[in-house]
């Protein structure tokens, strides 16, 4: 990472130095250093964020402000950095540069406002817990250190299971659930987090039609309750039906805005149509300059 950082530091120095030589040389860059034009109370405000995995940049200079109370889809081809975007927003992967604010404050201070539905493959489904146990995990943050789970929390979890239509399966070990049911359990876990901003990583991947419908209904319910939801999505056919807002991503934001404005043939082509081979090559070269894994 350091090789990359050293390059970046040189750059950061350039853009940060507003006085003197640098500003005479690059007057145009002085403006981008601050982010004050962004509304500070947006549920999610990403500014000038670059993320690299193993030194290979996967997201470049992302700027985005999520509007309050909208269902926001994130679409893009494989390897476009969709999951990375939400993981970086939650500090799960380190950022090379940039800043993320949740309702105007850093994520570390706003965790209680954020709910998360990870990809289904991210956990060991053989783990000895029941569906109810998994949902209860969403309350752990509110329960606090060393305190046991009480009936109140289990009841909240049960209620969430009911909302996703899984109350009958509360006691089932999670590996005995179908893919769609597992996803509903994850969804219920996010519900009990009682967050204002939700990140969901491919919640529709590998689920049956009924679950998809149920999840869409719940998403709309969340929107009615004024929540903001970012959903990584891969099915282009349902995009305009499900989402009010869209981020079209391919290593950088190709387009972002209300779905009816940005979900255009032109933008789709720019998002999916061919990789920017030169950029890929350069990213690869940056990755390699560090040597080793």
């Amino acid at each position, binding site marked *: 990472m*350091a*090789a*990359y950082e*050293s*390059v*970046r*530091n*040189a*750059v*950061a*120095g*350039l*853009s*940060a*130095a507003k006085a*003197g*030589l*640098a500003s*005479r*040389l*690059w007057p*145009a*860059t002085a*403006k*981008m250093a601050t982010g004050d034009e962004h509304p500070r109370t947006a549920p999610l405000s990403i500014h*000038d964020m670059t993320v690299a995995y193993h030194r290979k940049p996967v997201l*470049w*200079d992302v*700027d985005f402000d999520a509007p309050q109370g909208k269902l926001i889809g994130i679409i893009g081809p494989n390897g476009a950095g969709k999951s990375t975007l939400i993981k970086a927003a939650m500090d799960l992967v380190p950022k090379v*540069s940039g800043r993320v604010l949740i309702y105007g404050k850093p994520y570390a201070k706003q965790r209680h406002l954020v709910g998360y539905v990870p990809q289904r493959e991210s956990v060991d489904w*053989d783990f000895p817990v029941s569906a109810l146990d998994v949902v209860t995990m969403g309350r752990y943050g509110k329960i606090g250190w060393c305190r046991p789970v009480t009936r109140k929390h289990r009841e909240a979890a049960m209620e969430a299971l009911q909302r996703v239509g899984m109350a009958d399966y509360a006691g089932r070990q999670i590996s005995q659930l179908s893919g769609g049911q597992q996803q509903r359990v994850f969804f219920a876990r996010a519900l009990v987090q009682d967050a204002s901003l939700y990140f969901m990583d491919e919640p529709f991947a590998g689920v049956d039609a009924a679950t998809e419908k149920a999840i869409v209904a719940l998403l709309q319910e969340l929107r009615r309750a004024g929540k903001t939801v970012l959903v990584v999505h891969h099915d282009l056919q349902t995009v305009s039906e499900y989402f009010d807002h869209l981020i079209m991503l391919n*290593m*950088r934001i*190709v*387009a972002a805005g209300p779905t009816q404005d940005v979900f255009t043939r032109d933008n789709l082509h*720019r998002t999916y149509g061919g990789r*920017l081979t*030169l*950029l890929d*090559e*350069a990213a690869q*070269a*940056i990755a390699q*300059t*560090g*040597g*080793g*894994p």
Partner: protein
Amino acid sequence: MTWTTADTWIVVAGALTAASCALLGNYLVLRRMSMMGDAISHAVLPGLAVAFVLTGSRANLPMFVGAAVVGVLTAMLTQSIHSLGQVEQSASMGVVFTLLFAVGLVLMELWARHVDLDPGCVLFGAIELVALDTTVRLAGLDVPWAVVTLAGMFAVNTAFVLLFYKELKISSFDPKLSTTLGINANLMHYLLMGLVAATSVACFPIVGSILVIAMLIVPPAAAHLLTDRLSTMIVLSVALAGASAVLGHLGAVTVPGWFGFRDTSIAGMMAVAAGAILTIAILFAPRHGIVSRALHRVRLTLQVAQEDALGLLYRVEEMPSPRPPVAVPALRQALALGPLTARATLAGLVRSGKVEWGGQGYRLTERGRDDARRMVRAHRLWESYLVQFMGLPPDHVHSAAMRLEHVTDPAMQRQLADRTEQPQRDPHGMSIPPAD
């Protein structure tokens, strides 16, 4: 110390052990099954006990076969507990080998009368006694029997690795593909495990199981850091294993002396020597070593700073008069460099004749200007590319271009120019310098 024949035989036995193990160990390391070496060398204990009781002797072919069977059994039990009971692979391995080891301990105690071998011997070996072993007259030399056995084992393993080189390679790299190509990956797996077990047994009485585990894993791990080619890795691992044996013996005799003690366990020191070699490889391996990578990063940082400095001087030359003089403080401020880096950067540029001191500030020489023009050209071409193809606003592309210009070779620069249709000016309206 005085070097005696006994020392020679100890080193030879140690080196043969180490090399035999390292040959096979390469594949354990590459298959991410290093702990299988640990498991098998513990688990053959009951096999040993049974073989001793049945054959009543130490170095016998049936004993190797018996141990190989137990070794394969370990691998199979691990696999079947994993698949039958959905127990995670490493846990299932842990269940199998600790259990077999316990069974072995009990069998040894039960048959203590029949077996002139105690668990201590299995763990630590008795390499010190190699030269006292019965000898065989070979080519005018009295060769200890243990050395003959080990040489045989080494020959077998070498033959295995040479004969099945490509089969082992493909089945380690991609077992499924290997099976579809008609090379049964499972068969190769169990063959390897059987051989690991047999090797463990051949080596136990002499060096003990610790050294077996160490030599199976450590020299191949070090070799893996030193090279990216399988064949080189194998040769290297054998060499490193041999070196560990020699260093280990020397260490066992000399190191305790530094602290006022007499000598110590040779097998233990051989493992330590292997560990030392691995540590050196971790730190100084040319491409993957920690120190080498750090040095590489420093070089890279300097190179990037030098290129930035050239670009800066070029841009200053482009400015209308009066141009600000560029000395160390200005450079530091503009490129955000530390005092040391800034001086090293400029010193490097002056040394390579790209920059010279012009009284008030630094200026480009002819050579430096060529380089600088290329940098600035790459930078501005990237800016154009990013604006055109990534749809970034012009005021956002500078930092990305700053990163990209350093990795842009002439070929990429030509492609960039083609893709952006040879622009004359960048998105900020600055003129893009010509290629040459």
